[in-house]
Structures are given as C-alpha cells and as structure tokens.
C-alpha cells in the first residue's frame, strides 16, 4: 500500500519546504536557479537507479498519473496508424481503467490472461501482437501477489516486433535491479511512496533513443519536455531523488533481509496451519509481498480479527470494494479462497518481532475462526465442499 518516509529522505526534503522555496522554472533569479539545480540532481538520481539518462525522466504526481500518460499518451499520438493495445488482466486499476477509457475512444485492447502462477505466457503475448499494436503494458511486480513478470523477455519480444513496451514498475523500482536498456523498456512508471519517498510524486521514464512520443494529458506551459506541464514540486522531487539514491545503496541489504523475513513468515504460518495457499509464483516474485489464502475462513472476519496489524485483502485501492480481487480471479483462485486471502507486506523497516507477532496472531485467529466454521468441520470429516448442493433460502 505504502511505505514510511526514510528519515534521510525527510532530511533531504525539508530545506525545500522552507528557505529554498523558489519555482524551479524561474529562469531569472537565484531562488529559481537553486531549486532547479536540486530538481535536476533528483532527476539524475532517479535516472541512475534504472539505468536511464536524466533527460528521459519526467516528474509526475505518482505512478497513477505516469500510467495514464504512458497509455493514453502513446495511444493517442500514434492513433492514425495504430489502434490496438495489449495488457494483462492483473494490472493495477489505473492501467486497466486507462485501457477502458481508450476503448471508449475507439481503440481495441487485448487483456491477456495469466498462468496460475501469475506469470504471463510469452507465447500468448507473441500471438496477440498485431501490425497495428501501439503499446504493450505489463507491470514488473504485481501489487497484490508480488509476482515478478519476465520483463526482459517481454521487452525483447516487443522490440523485435517494433511495439513500444511500457511497464508499471511502481512495486519494483528500488527493490530489485532494473535496467531499462537491458530490458528494452520504452516507458516506465515510478511511484515515490513505494520506495520510502513522499506521497504525491512519481516519475515516468520515456525513452529518447529510439524516441517515444506521446500526447500530453496536461496542457500548460510545456514543462518536463512538454510531456507534463505544471510546476514541478521541488521538495517532492528532491524526496523522490533521495529515496531512489538510498534505494540503490540499500538494495542488496534490504533484499536479503526482506527475503529472510518473508521466508520466516511463510514457513511459520504454513508449519502451524494446514490448507494455506500461497498465491503467485514464489521463485519469480518480490518476497516482500506475500499473499496467503486460508481455506474455510471468511476473509473480512480474519482481517477484523487481525486489526492491530496493517494487512489487507486485495490491494489498498480495492479494499473498499465488495467483490473479491480480480487478480486472484485471474490466477484461477477459487472464489472462496479469493475471499479469504490476506496480503502481508514486508519492508525496510519491518522488524523480526513484528513478523513473529503477526504470525502468532494470524495462527491463533485462523484456528479460532476455523473452530467456528461449519465448512471447516466438513473438510475435517473429508467432505468435498465442491460436491455440496447449496440451496437458496
């Protein structure tokens, strides 16, 4: 859902909230020059983390805006020749909604299904690409089940077919090495508050060689290479830059630590409870995002029972909806299991004690709820729940 600000990021941001308040686009005085220097330094820090050139980074209000710009912007620019887009069924809502908006403008969108592991089938992508395909958009790491898509292979395929490749890397940037050139990525969305930076800022990487053009969503004074008009919020940009720089520094250490804590969480739960499903491929994933389904336990009841731990069923942006997660449905999870799935997030500041507390609480509550569950009783007796004919009252 989000991450706290790393205190070092806050340190970097504060001066730009107080004394260094100038508009970075003001060309004619020192207030402008000093903040412009800071924004350009932040731009370089973001670029360095992903192997890009600073000129290829455009600051936005977050990954949602970046996704909108990438998808709608590219589609509309090339609309005279290209009318088709491809994405996956497990993308973030802002990607899917942007695609739906384009469908109402007359574009065709192919929503590729995923394998039960959550990974995209490259053969299905290859057969979906048409001569009039403008863009393929596949996220690097899924926000609900943590699965990491084979973006290098997807990028190579798209490059060989002359189709632009966009990836929503909000959950991946800063947590694993990403190189936009090695992976043939043409556009990439970055979110500040997913890597211990501030909320309200993100970036979009737009390749310059070969040049990707897009129609801007926001009209105005032409800031950010004409792609995103509006004053760049210098203190937020500085925060994003500092967060990226720290992420590059801390990546190896964080990755090992998060992996260890993630294994600890899963092993301890699975060793104490039966009928637990780990959703999503565990080899190609970000270990800090763990999604477990507990059979015969009602999901909302479990979440309420685990109130003193910040967990979710489905992602934050779907937590208010009543239907089970579309991501879990796409990986073929049973509807009952989809209802009783919980997402555990582990990060830079998660402690081992917090993991142990969560495991104990979760095991206790699942056992309690299963005691109360007539379905659980039937499963214990060996009844196949699928064979039951439920009557309507």
């Amino acid at each position, binding site marked *: 859902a989000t991450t706290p600000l790393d205190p070092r990021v806050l340190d970097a941001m504060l001066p730009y909230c107080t004394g260094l308040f100038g508009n970075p686009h003001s*060309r004619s005085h020192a207030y402008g*020059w000093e903040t*412009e220097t800071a924004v350009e330094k932040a731009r370089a820090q973001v670029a360095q983390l992903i192997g890009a050139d600073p000129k290829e980074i455009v600051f936005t209000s977050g990954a949602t805006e970046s996704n909108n710009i990438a998808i709608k912007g590219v589609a509309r620019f090339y609309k005279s020749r290209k009318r088709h887009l491809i994405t996956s069924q497990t993308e973030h809502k802002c990607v899917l909604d942007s695609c739906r908006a384009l469908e109402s403008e007359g574009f065709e969108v192919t929503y590729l299904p995923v394998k039960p592991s959550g990974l995209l089938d490259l053969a299905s992508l290859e057969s979906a690409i048409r001569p009039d395909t403008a863009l393929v958009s596949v996220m690097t790491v899924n926000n609900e089940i943590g699965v990491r898509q084979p973006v290098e292979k997807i990028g190579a395929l798209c490059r060989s077919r002359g189709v632009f490749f966009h990836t929503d890397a909000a959950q991946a940037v800063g947590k694993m090495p990403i190189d936009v050139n090695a992976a043939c990525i043409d556009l990439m969305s970055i979110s500040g508050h997913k890597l211990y930076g501030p909320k309200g800022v993100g970036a979009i990487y737009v390749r310059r060689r070969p040049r990707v053009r897009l129609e801007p969503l926001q009209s105005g004074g032409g800031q950010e*290479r*004409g792609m995103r008009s509006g004053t760049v919020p210098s203190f937020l940009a500085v925060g994003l830059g500092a967060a990226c720089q720290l992420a590059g520094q801390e990546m190896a250490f964080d990755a090992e630590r998060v992996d260890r804590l993630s294994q600890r969480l899963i092993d301890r739960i699975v060793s104490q409870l039966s009928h637990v499903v780990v959703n999503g491929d565990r080899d190609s994933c970000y270990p800090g995002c763990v999604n477990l389904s507990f059979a015969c336990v009602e999901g909302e009841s479990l979440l309420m029972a685990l109130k003193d731990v910040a967990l979710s069923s489905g992602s934050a942006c779907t937590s208010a909806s009543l239907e089970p997660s579309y991501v879990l449905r796409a990986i073929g999870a049973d509807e009952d299991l989809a209802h009783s799935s919980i997402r555990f997030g582990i990060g830079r500041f998660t402690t081992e004690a917090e993991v142990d507390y969560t495991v104990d609480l979760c095991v206790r509550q699942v056992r309690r709820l299963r005691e109360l569950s007539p379905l659980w009783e039937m499963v214990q007796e060996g009844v196949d729940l699928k064979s039951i004919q439920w009557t309507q009252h």
Partner: protein
Amino acid sequence: LPRLLLPAAAPSGCFCNSNWALVRKPVAAATAAAYSSSSTAPADAPAGPPVSVTVIDKSGKEHQVSGQSGENLLRLLQRYELPVEGACEASLACCTCHVYVDAPDSADLSSVTEAEEDMLDMAPFLRENSRLSCQIVLAAGLDGMRVTLPQATRNFYVDGHVPKPH
C-alpha cells in the same frame, strides 16, 4: 556585422551563467533587405534548380512557393511572408517553426538529428510527421513537397498574432 546574443540551447541553463554564447550572424547587407519583403531569392541564396512547395496554412488555404535547391525551408516560407514564426532564427533553439511534412520518410529529406527531436518534443500539436522547417534544406527531389502549418506554436498569442521574422 551584427553580433547577437543567443542562448546556446534554450531549455536548460539559467539566464546568468555561461550557457549564453556570442553568435556571429552571417548576414550580408543585401540579404537583410531581401528577407524583409521580396519573394525573389536573396542575393546570397545558393543557386540550384527550382523547388516548388505547397504550403497549407491553418485555415486550409494552399499557397504555392518556389525556392532553390540548397535553400532553407523556413527562410523560403518567410520570404513569401507566410505566417511561420522563427523565434531563434534557425539556430535550433526553439520549436516555433514547427511544420508537418507530407512525406516524412522521403530520402531527399535530411534525417532528424537528436537535437531537432529534443526541440520538437516541446512543440504543441506534435504529430509523427512533424519537423522543424529551419532544419529542412530544399533538394531537387523535394519538388512538389506539401507542408502544413500547425494550428498554433509554443507562443501563446491566442488572438492570432504571428511575430514577424527578426
């Protein structure tokens, strides 16, 4: 010869640091007068076979212009007093001379450099066949070329005012 202060590269750099450069503008006295109103070729324009170009302005009206091989397209359009801006005077530091060309992949058209792409990025109403007219040099093979003017430039004179060539 007049010496002019021009920004070396418009988008980056501040007013007072060393991004400003002194640029000597190679203008012969005769040509300065020629640029202001005549539609005959200036005295120092390169001689070559005539190249005719059709220019469609933003109201859809077509204009026929004729230049010479080797001549700069922007200067040709301005000679005919067509409403094309050229704020940086063809020094690849702005995007106000933005035009759409009908055959962007023509072999006779000079290919786009990265610097031109960078300037084009900032032009409003960009399309796949956008070019900066100051970077197009007429060639015999471009005879019959059709060029369309975009509905606006980066300058916000929404009353329709078009700055005269400097």
